[in-house]
């Protein structure tokens, strides 16, 4: 859990690369950005070649087999651009609340990278149908998933190299996921 870090003056001290507390702060901030619809800022949390991935099966190669979502930075930008330009399935847009728990930090071979594991539960609802005419609209829906983040240290910041969310119902036919998990 702890590695040696060279600090100024060549004195060796034992510091965690990223503490659980720091990891939580990072995850809570990400959740807040999504829930407060600050999606342009959410985009900046990723590394340039960062990936946002909702697999059907994480043992398959996402370039060879289908995923629910497999977004590189360009895809993420397109996704947010479309949300801001009358994406019918997001008009009105979803409201979300992210609950994050069971956070654990694991080190990797690379000194500038850690794996952060957590559970996430997302409650989502699209308002806009006060008569309850449209089935599924105006009704909170819950998505639960096991998350795996690979975080990369860039200067003082941590950035997302991969955000992977394994939904518990990933292999079933799913309704629209046009918001950010």
């Amino acid at each position, binding site marked *: 859990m702890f590695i040696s870090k060279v600090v100024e003056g060549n004195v060796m001290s034992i510091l965690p690369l990223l503490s659980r507390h720091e990891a939580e702060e990072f995850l809570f901030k990400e959740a807040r950005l999504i829930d407060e619809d600050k999606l342009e800022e959410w985009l900046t949390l990723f590394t340039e070649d960062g990936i946002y991935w*909702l697999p059907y099966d994480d043992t398959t190669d996402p370039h060879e087999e289908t995923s629910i*979502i497999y977004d590189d930075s360009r895809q993420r930008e397109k996704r947010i651009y479309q949300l801001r330009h009358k994406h*019918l399935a997001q008009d009105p847009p979803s409201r979300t609340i992210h609950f994050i728990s069971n956070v654990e930090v694991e080190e990797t071979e690379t000194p500038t990278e850690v794996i952060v594991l957590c559970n996430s539960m997302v409650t989502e609802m699209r308002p806009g149908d006060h008569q309850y005419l449209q*089935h*599924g609209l105006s009704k909170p829906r819950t998505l639960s998933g096991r998350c795996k983040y690979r975080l990369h240290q860039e200067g003082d910041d941590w950035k997302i190299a991969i955000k992977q969310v394994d939904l518990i119902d990933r292999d079933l*036919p799913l309704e*629209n*996921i046009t918001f950010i998990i």
Partner: protein
Amino acid sequence: MNTEALIKETEDDFRVHSRIYTDPEIFNLEMQKLFEEGWCYVAHESEVPNVGDFRTSAVGRIPVIVSRGDDGKVYVNVNACRHRGTVVCREERGNTRFFVCPYHGWSYKRDGTINNITDRDNFPDDWGKDIKGLIAADHITNYRGMIFASFNPDVESFDTHMGPLKKYVDFWFDHAVEGHVRVLKPWRALYQGNWKFQLENSTDGWHARYVHVSALKTLTEFGEYNSNVGWAGCTRGFAGGHGILERPRGDIPPELKSTFDMFQQELKSKYGDEYGEDMFVRRHITIFPNIQLMEFKLRIIQPVAVDQTIVYEFPVELVGTSSEVNESIRTRLFKEVSISSGSPVSGMVNADDVEIYARTQAGLSGGHMAWLRFGRGIHREKSERENEWSGQDMDELPQRCLYRKWLKAMS
């Protein structure tokens, strides 16, 4: 049920009653007449390539097992034990020697024939001699790898059902050097609306400029769509209820252009210029009642209830075609650069269609909006071939052909 009263066609108008989207009784009749007693797609051959491979599927409401027997042939059997009806196989796909019922242990061979009735000693000698195996489909057909089944001994011939659509389906499969495709694992989507909304929509050339405004705007912004191509092409409809929307190929992004040019050149040298040109036109092909051949993906519509539908989309690999071309196709599909592609659940395009289906289902609540109108271009339907009609690219011609067939099959 008097289905005649549900579709009204006159010289210059075409109306469909809203009950066909909302009435569970009509839904059940559709499942029987159109799916179970018609020709229903059950699986693609490439999903069961080896002896013992199986995949569970459905024909309308009937659960089935599609499996490859010891003789290498594909079989379609009802997925219910002949003893007391328990589902015999629950896995979606796999490979097995026997299908064993979990209730009292009866077992069936790969082709569905009976292997063992347990505790034989406790039955009269001749008991159960009539049980030859799981209940087999009355007819099975394999057309270019697509497996169809029918639970109607007197179903019309598959050739008659397909009619002149065959030519276009062949175009689609001829894109592969070896003439057939392999399907990848599907995207799976669920929507809260009637199955026919999806059936109507893929050949509806009119809605894109409204429903897909945001997708087109996004693709244009990111330099992935050439809006100069404009809206051209045509629609086609068939006596079998099938339909086609044809569009010129205008949205190939710059980074894939050279591969696609090479791809078409290969096809032209294989089939000749004329065929190579004609087959390469972009087409959405609907095979009645539940298949849509889209751009390099096979879409299957699986109705669940009158107001709930599952859609499977299988990206395809063109067998024998260069890996460069196949890779470009995957890039195009997975990254949603094509306006007709991408994950249906979270992609740029289908998610918006699905929103319309649910919203239309909502509008039909209460049944007071009784008649849906499909009149666009009804005054200019043309027929150059028997059982085939054509119209302008945004005409509601494929939908009219679909409902003419619907009425015939339902009565």
